[in-house]
């Protein structure tokens, strides 16, 4: 099963499958049914972050350095959490500017500087080539282990020529793959659909393979996680295996690694490629923001169990980096190691594919093209031919050669140096190099004042410090340089020791390097920017980058105001992009009004479009150089764009103020509306009140008029009838005047003009007097009145006449609603805390919970709960104003009036509560004279 032919056919069969998938995805894309138009595919393609380093190296790192391996994945989690803000902005900038790579991004931000682009490309090439080598090393190593196990592979490369090294052939196959699917279009800012589909597929493969190993380890080799952890705990070497003590640099090293991983995730060329350049829809970022971290969590879940199990295996000759492979081999599995090998292969190839595309784009657009454009060779070429797209082939050719060279460079590095480093070391050194891009990129996206000079010095200083503190010491440890450099410092100067720069000792080397390099980097960026000036183009680009999220600035590009003809533009475009593309760009401009003669001058918009098309293929810096070469006169109208931007920001500020004003106005008008609403409501209530008053007044008036007319018109009326009718007229007249009195009281109460004459009085005495006053009427109605008052005085402050009116009203009310037979009313007075409570209850049907507040509404006529008409038969109806007036009076005296269930008689109980009169100084009180 593990014989070489089988392994080779599996490996190359897998690569063939990638070709099929990529070809299929490209076919689908051409048919307009894209496979990669889904946020899930986007998230999976980001998982190209997990390379062979993750696949093999995580376990190795966990076995040696405890939980620190997780930092490499927690960092990207942090970065993705702000992805909907940060990455969305990067994507929007990239789309507007036709950005092809991170070198292009930084170059475009700082005034389309070709020098910056070249610098970034060089740093990337220097920093990332070892990372590619790392992938090849992983393939070679895993292949060797698989075929030679249990013998430990030594000197893998030394005993055989490169043609026997399978990773060489893998690199070649990949070169073909990348050339086929990575350089289909000249426009590098366009998406590589086939490649992305293949990458997403590879992400699934490596996940499945790793989970398979993990599951088998935990549940087949051991009896679940409990068993594994118990045995690991018993192993003396593993007691501290999971604690922070294992982490290099302790807590500080922990933070350093977290920062490093966060920055590198955003700036590694392949991550920039999949996150930004290959993004098809901004909204995919939302899903990826949590799905990609979830992928990282899942693929890491079995790292610790596998690492522990590997150490428990106890074979000291096994490298922890290969536990993933040796564990199933040691357990005697046959198929599983092969699956693991494929998983590792997929992790390695995925990384190499994307990284190589990104690097080759940078190398061709930012290193080779600028050189060619400056040399006389291009101009010679233009003179020789009429411009029929001959350069298109050249451009693609350059990129393809770059691909092959980069992969070969990686292979050389692997073959010559690779053995000296462990997997993890190479990866982290690369991370630290990529992190140097972060200040220029991230600060440039938010700080308009960052200048080209600042970015230049930042990158150069940062990468120099990186080289001195990480790269060169690495060489020394590999034995190519004198170790004395590490121990004694450069030229024997103690504070120049690379791992303890300026005497900073006791830090782990990565945190140490990151600290010094970022300090130099950010310091130079900010410091130099503050003391250097931006060119007009820089100012424009800086504004376009920092304000990218502003909707009005979308796609706003500087316009060319110089003169050129359609013919010249066409010649330029077709030379670099091919005639069909050139025609498509020129035809898109309908404003040319059909006049396509070569001598017609090109519109500024058309020139801008031509520049963007060239930028997509050649990068922003080269595109500008090319357009400059055909446009005469004042080339770029930067003032216009800058003034637009400035106007826009002024307008934004103005808008903000206007918005605030309008918010205030809205609030005021809302308040006005509410007041108006309230007035209208009051008006309605007043209308209703007037209608009710008139209704109430009309009723007694009707009887009075009717009987008056009857008395006038009936001459021979019997005396008793006549007397009865006159009684009615008198009674109704009294009712009418009482009603008018009440209405006036109510009006005074509501307007606050009711004049009270408060004095100290004995409520008990007043209650008894009021009861006496109504006694006779009550008896006539067949109602028994019982009065319970304390013998001692109940002193309150009140207006005696008004309070008497209230008590009589309460008694009158109660008698009306007392039971038809043997109606009973009870008046009681008692002290309650600092108050006197006067309660009047009856033995009537009581008042329902819902009605209790409504009885205090004006003109509210009680309906009895038994559905009969309001008062018991034979008792007069009230006006419906007594209770509201009573409550108003009591409230004016600082008391309360409310309804409860009667405590002794079972009917309704109205309770008036008044505050006790304050203790009196007998000497000074005028009330005490009697």
């Amino acid at each position, binding site marked *: 099963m593990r014989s070489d032919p089988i392994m080779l056919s599996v490996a190359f069969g897998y690569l063939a499958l990638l070709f099929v998938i990529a070809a299929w995805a490209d076919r689908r894309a051409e048919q307009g049914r894209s496979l990669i138009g889904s946020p899930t595919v986007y998230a999976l393609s980001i998982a190209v972050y997990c390379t062979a380093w993750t696949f093999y190296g995580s376990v190795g790192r966990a076995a040696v350095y*405890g*939980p620190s391996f*997780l*930092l490499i994945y*927690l960092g990207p*989690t*942090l970065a993705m*959490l*702000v992805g*909907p*803000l940060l990455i969305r902005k990067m994507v*929007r900038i990239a*789309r*507007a500017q036709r950005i092809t790579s991170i070198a292009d991004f930084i170059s475009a931000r700082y005034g389309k500087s070709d020098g910056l682009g070249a610098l970034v490309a060089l740093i990337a090439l220097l920093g990332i080539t070892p990372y590619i080598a790392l992938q090849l090393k992983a393939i070679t190593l895993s292949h060797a282990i698989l075929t030679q196990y249990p013998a430990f592979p030594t000197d893998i490369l030394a005993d055989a020529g490169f043609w026997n090294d399978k990773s060489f052939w893998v690199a070649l196959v990949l070169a073909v793959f990348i050339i086929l699917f990575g350089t289909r279009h000249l426009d590098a800012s366009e998406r590589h659909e086939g490649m992305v589909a293949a990458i997403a597929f590879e992400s699934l493969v490596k996940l499945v393979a790793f989970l398979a190993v993990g599951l088998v380890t935990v549940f087949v080799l051991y009896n679940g996680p409990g068993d594994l*952890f*118990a045995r*690991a*705990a*018993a192993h003396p070497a*593993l*007691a*501290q*295996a*999971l*604690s*922070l003590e294992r982490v290099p640099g302790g*807590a500080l090293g*922990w*933070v350093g690694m*977290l920062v490093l991983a966060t920055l590198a995730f955003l700036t590694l060329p392949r991550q920039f490629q999949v996150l930004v350049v290959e993004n098809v*829809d*901004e*909204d995919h970022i*939302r*899903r990826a*923001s*949590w*799905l990609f*971290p*979830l992928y990282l*969590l899942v693929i890491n*879940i079995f790292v*610790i169990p596998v690492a522990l199990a590997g150490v428990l295996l106890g074979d000291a000759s096994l490298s922890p980096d290969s536990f993933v492979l040796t564990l199933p081999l040691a357990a005697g599995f046959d198929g599983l190691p092969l699956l693991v090998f494929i998983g590792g292969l997929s992790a390695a190839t995925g990384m190499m594919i994307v990284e190589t595309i990104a690097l080759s784009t940078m190398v061709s657009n930012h290193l080779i093209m600028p050189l060619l454009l400056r040399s006389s060779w291009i101009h010679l070429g233009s003179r020789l031919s009429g411009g029929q797209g001959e350069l298109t082939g050249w451009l693609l050719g350059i990129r393809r050669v770059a691909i092959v060279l980069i992969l070969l460079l990686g292979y050389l590095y692997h073959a010559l140096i690779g053995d000296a480093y462990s997997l993890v070391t190479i990866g982290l050194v690369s991370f630290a190099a990529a992190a140097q891009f972060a200040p220029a990129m991230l600060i440039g996206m938010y700080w308009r004042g960052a200048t080209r000079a600042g970015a230049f010095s930042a990158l150069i200083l940062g990468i120099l410090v990186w080289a001195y503190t990480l790269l060169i010491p690495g060489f020394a440890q590999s034995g190519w340089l004198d170790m004395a450099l590490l121990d004694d410092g450069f030229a024997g100067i103690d504070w120049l020791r690379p791992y303890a720069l300026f005497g900073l000792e006791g830090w782990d080397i990565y945190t140490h390097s990151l600290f010094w390099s970022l300090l130099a980097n950010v310091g130079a960026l900010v410091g130099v920017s503050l003391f250097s000036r931006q060119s007009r183009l820089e100012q424009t680009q800086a504004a376009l980058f920092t304000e990218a999220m502003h*909707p009005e600035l*979308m*796609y*706003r*590009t500087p*316009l060319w105001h110089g003169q050129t003809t359609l013919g010249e533009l066409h010649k330029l475009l077709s030379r670099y992009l091919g005639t069909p593309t050139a025609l498509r760009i020129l035809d*898109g401009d309908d*404003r040319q009004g059909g006049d396509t003669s070569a001598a017609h001058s090109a*519109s*500024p*918009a058309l020139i*801008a*479009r031509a520049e963007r098309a060239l930028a997509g293929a050649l990068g922003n810096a080269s595109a500008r150089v090319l357009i400059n070469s055909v446009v005469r006169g004042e080339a770029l109208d930067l003032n*216009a764009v800058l003034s*637009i931007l400035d106007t826009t920001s002024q307008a934004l500020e103005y808008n903000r103020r206007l918005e605030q004003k309008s918010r205030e106005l809205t609030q005021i008008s809302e308040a006005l509306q509410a007041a108006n609403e309230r007035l209208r409501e009051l008006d309605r209530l007043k209308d209703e009140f007037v209608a009710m008053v008139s209704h109430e007044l009309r009723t007694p008036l009707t009887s009075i008029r009717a009987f008056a007319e009857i008395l006038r018109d009936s001459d021979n009326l019997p005396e008793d009838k006549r007397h009865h009718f006159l009684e009615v007229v008198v009674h109704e007249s009294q009712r009418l005047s009482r009603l008018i009195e009440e209405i006036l009281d109510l009006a005074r109460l509501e307007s606050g003009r009711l004049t009270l004459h408060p004095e100290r009085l004995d409520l008990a005495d007043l209650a008894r007097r009021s009861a006496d006053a109504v006694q006779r009427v009550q008896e006539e109605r067949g109602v028994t009145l019982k009065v319970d008052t304390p013998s001692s005085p109940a002193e309150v402050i009140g207006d005696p006449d008004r309070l008497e009116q209230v008590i009589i009203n309460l008694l009158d009310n109660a008698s009306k609603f007392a039971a038809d037979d043997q109606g009973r009313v009870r008046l009681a007075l008692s002290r309650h805390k600092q108050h006197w409570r006067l309660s009047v209850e009856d033995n009537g049907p009581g008042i329902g919970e819902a009605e209790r507040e409504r009885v205090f509404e004006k003109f509210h006529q009680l309906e009895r709960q038994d559905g009969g008409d309001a008062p018991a038969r034979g008792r007069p109806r009230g006006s419906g104003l007594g209770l509201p007036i009573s409550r108003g009076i009591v409230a004016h005296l600082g008391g309360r009036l409310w309804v409860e269930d009667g405590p002794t008689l079972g009917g309704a109980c109205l309770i008036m509560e008044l505050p006790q009169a304050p203790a009196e100084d007998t000497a000074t009180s005028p009330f005490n004279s009697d």
Partner: protein
Amino acid sequence: MNRRQEKARLLALAGLALLLFSPPLILLFDQPSTNGLSWLPLYLFVAWGAVIGMAAWWLERPDVTPREKPTGAPQEERQQHEK
């Protein structure tokens, strides 16, 4: 939920994650359990999962309408030119 609020929430969540993933909080969990192994990795996985869960919950709710985004070619160029 409006855009401003979502932005604030994401920033707050990232801040929370940073706090959960760094010292001194991780030091609290770097304690040996009964069998001697540290709780730290378990804590990290739980905190990590919780952060991912929260992000998923906020970002996947259907009521958030996608922000209008640029589609197709620039439109302003022409008007800009006609001044």
